[in-house]
């Protein structure tokens, strides 16, 4: 007996956003990445084909990130001392995007100087052809101090610049607009706050297709349910036609999982927790795949094995389309 599968016909869809620009488009990337365009809930291929598959970004730092889990530092080995080499290694490992994350401190105790930050970005751009996301530490003064010269010096690359937050978005949005870049807006796990930040940024004249939103999430076991449901509600609102929620979402399971004790600490923990590396990679993979199911268009990861596993999961989810 044939079964009619009930289908939703949504009036709205997620904006399509292209990251990076090739030389034809005014940048230097060897390829671009296009995300969003969703017209149904994730992987409901029978309703609407998935316009663009979720992509994986790998996070790197301008210098060895001492606070990272020893598992990660060991895995990446010496490349962590050279952002160019690190970006290159990520590209070879199969990343779609690179996220260059600046910390609160540079080499010493002071925040990184703007010129050093700019040259780190240029190093990465020179080493890889992948589109690049550049994130400040999320503290207004430092973010503005480093992102403005970076935006100026990389005009036309369609970088994604962040963090734009409720209290600090004007400077970053203005320099992104002036230099043909995109921005990442982050809000703390709340549908309304995400929407409000998008309104504030578009009020400045930034087109919606140049915004990626980070609704913030938690690791598995550390509040993922809350993050998941906020993402799901944002996506539902977008499909229902609420323009200010119709943006692709980027979340950071790498950061969220590798800061948990389970991933960060290997000694003095119960034996039942199992092998350290496997535990960390599983944690990161499961968190990332769950968030992709919730509607994430970009997941930011840290471990190359997680990259492979999440890639395989995405392949499976996409393959369903042809069944």
């Amino acid at each position: 007996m044939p079964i009619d599968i009930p289908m939703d016909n949504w009036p709205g869809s997620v904006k399509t956003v292209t990251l990076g620009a090739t030389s034809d488009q005014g940048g230097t990337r060897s390829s671009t990445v296009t995300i969003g365009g969703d017209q149904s809930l994730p992987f409901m291929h029978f309703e609407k084909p998935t316009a663009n598959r979720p992509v994986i970004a790998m996070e790197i730092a301008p210098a060895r990130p001492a606070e990272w889990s020893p598992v990660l530092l060991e895995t990446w080995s010496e490349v962590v001392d050279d952002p160019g080499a690190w970006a290159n290694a990520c590209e070879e490992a199969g990343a779609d995007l690179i996220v260059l994350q600046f910390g609160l401190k540079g080499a010493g105790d002071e925040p990184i100087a703007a010129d050093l930050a700019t040259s780190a970005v240029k190093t990465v751009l020179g080493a890889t052809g992948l589109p690049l996301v550049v994130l400040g530490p999320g503290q207004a003064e430092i973010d503005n101090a480093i992102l403005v010269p970076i935006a100026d010096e990389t005009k036309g690359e369609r970088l994604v610049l962040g963090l734009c937050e409720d209290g600090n978005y004007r400077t970053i949005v203005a320099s992104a607009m002036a230099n043909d870049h995109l921005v990442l807006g982050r809000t703390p796990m709340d549908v309304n706050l995400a929407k409000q930040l998008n309104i504030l940024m578009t009020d400045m004249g930034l087109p919606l297709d140049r915004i990626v939103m980070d609704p913030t999430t938690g690791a598995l076991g550390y509040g993922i349910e809350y993050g998941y449901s906020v993402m799901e509600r944002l996506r539902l609102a977008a499909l229902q036609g609420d323009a200010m929620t119709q943006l692709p979402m980027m979340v950071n399971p790498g950061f969220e999982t590798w800061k948990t004790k389970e991933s960060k600490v290997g000694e003095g923990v119960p034996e039942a927790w199992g092998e350290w590396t496997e535990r960390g990679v599983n944690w990161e993979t499961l968190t990332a795949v769950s968030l992709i199911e919730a509607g994430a268009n970009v997941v930011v990861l840290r471990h190359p094995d997680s990259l492979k596993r999440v890639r395989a999961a995405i392949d499976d989810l996409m393959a369903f389309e042809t069944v």
Partner: protein
Amino acid sequence: MTDYLVRFDSHPEPIEVQTGALLVEAARRGGVEIRQPCGGQGRCGRCAVLIESGQVRRRSVLRLSKADLEAGYALACQTVVEGDVAVVVPPAEQIQRRLTTDHVAPEAVVPEGYDPARVQTVRRILLELSAPSMDDQTDDWGRLCTALRRATGVTRLDTTLEQIRRLGPVLRASEWRIAVTIDTGRDPNGAAHLIRVEPATVAEGAPLCGLAIDVGTTTVTVWLIDLLTGRVQFQAGEYNGQISRGEDVISRIIYGSKNDGGEELRGLVLETINTLVDSACSRTGIDATAIAKATVSGNSTMMHLLLGIPPESIRLEPFITPINHMPPLRASDVGITMNADGIVDPLPGVASYVGADITAGVLSSGLRSSPETALFIDVGTNGEMVLGSSEWLVTCACSAGPAFEGAGVLHGMRADIGAIEEVWIDGRTYEPTSRVIGDVAPRGICGSGLISLVAEMFLTGILDKGGHINQTLATPRVRRGLHGAEYVLAWSKETETGDDIVITRVDIDNLLRAKAAIYAGFNVLADRVGVPLDSAERVLIGGSFGKYINVEKAVDIGLLPDMPWERFDFLGNTSVRGAYLALLDREARAEITEIASSMTYIELSADNSFYEAFTSALFLPHTDLSRFPSVAAAMT
């Protein structure tokens, strides 16, 4: 080249202008002063003039009502001369209060046909007692009761030991001609209570007074009333002395539950009340012993703290008050400065977070007078709201904080002399113009001033929709201060205090949270009842944030729903007004009891839609701009 002549009433010569000139340009040319606080953008309505004759084109009629237009009013800054025109410039004070969206709280009016002998529970009766003799051995008390019964029909009389101790000497000294003040109580068939016995000669022509008291979390208001005429003799307000022990009811309860905190809080609020009563007495020359009765309104926590009843259970699930319907109390037990044997009548509440301020407010707002659905909002530290009609009442409460009463804001103050109560900002220069209560140098900003200021800052782009001050603007008025970004409303040389009056980022956040809580409250209320918010035919606004509210500006910031302005009524302090009505009239008092018993209470903490509604309202005017079409129009 001259096209047309414009004639101003105050100017002897006609002024020559070209086609397309604005009236303000003609005025400027002729030296006729027309004030334009908003910088000629047609927003403030202060440049309204009367077109006596001639052809003009009104580019914008914002802030003018249909009646205004029919009367010939036009905004000078928005009106184009298209013929020879005669114009009358009304005096500024005439303009100030006739704007369509300004809603001024009405004066307290004695209810029509007030007849103390019929409706008042407090009565003073002149009695001539028969003197005792060897043939008439009735005791003094029996003699008094008999005379009272004959004169009034009162059959039972309560008294106190002290009064009995004083009785004999007074009767004899007055030669048995006395004035007896009694309270006949809520129940006409119950016992009356003896308040005072005095010689008739003393009482004749002497005042007989009552108090209506509203104990707010932030503001305490006292009205002194002449019970014989019903007139309000004096109104006074002051910040509740408990503020320094916590800004909201929850922190007060916590403070009160520690050590002797409860007794300390009781003492503080009594001190505030009694200071106000003292000043009312001294300003009117009335002796406190002439005050026979007080009705007290206030939220449940304030009421409990005033009476020294431990309020802890109000804070803890399942949020139960020790008592909602209090019996009448003896003044000396409560501690209010008045006749020690006078009656204090605490008005009844509904629940922990919907107190007597709301039952009294519903009474005085007239919410129940019509079968049409109306919304009553009491904008206070707790925002309480009631949706209903003569048939039904549903209520809820949410914590708004003290910002609208001018507290918890750096330069906030009560709506008193020296408070900035309205602000306009020139959209090009970001220069403000303000109106100060009493027309003196400003000391601070009151609640209505804060609403007005935030609305103007928003519409002129000084604030973005998130309430952030745009620090890239070219004006010295936007700067960084101790508390982050701030806007200077008045420079030190203009103020009474000699300090700059500013509004800070923190203040704006407080105001945003306050308005979001209130807006969210009535959205959830309407949702729960299942009616659209705009089904409310009237919106009745109470609160002690000022003597008036500019509805347009309250809508601009998203405090009030975007509805036709004529649906709004600003009633001022509805709580004290309700206490006043209950003081005067036994039936009004009975109606408050009925209101308290018939209201359905929705506990928002048990409603998870509130938080969602709150965060979406935490924006200017709201995350969903389609709810505020008039604001969207004003922004373009």
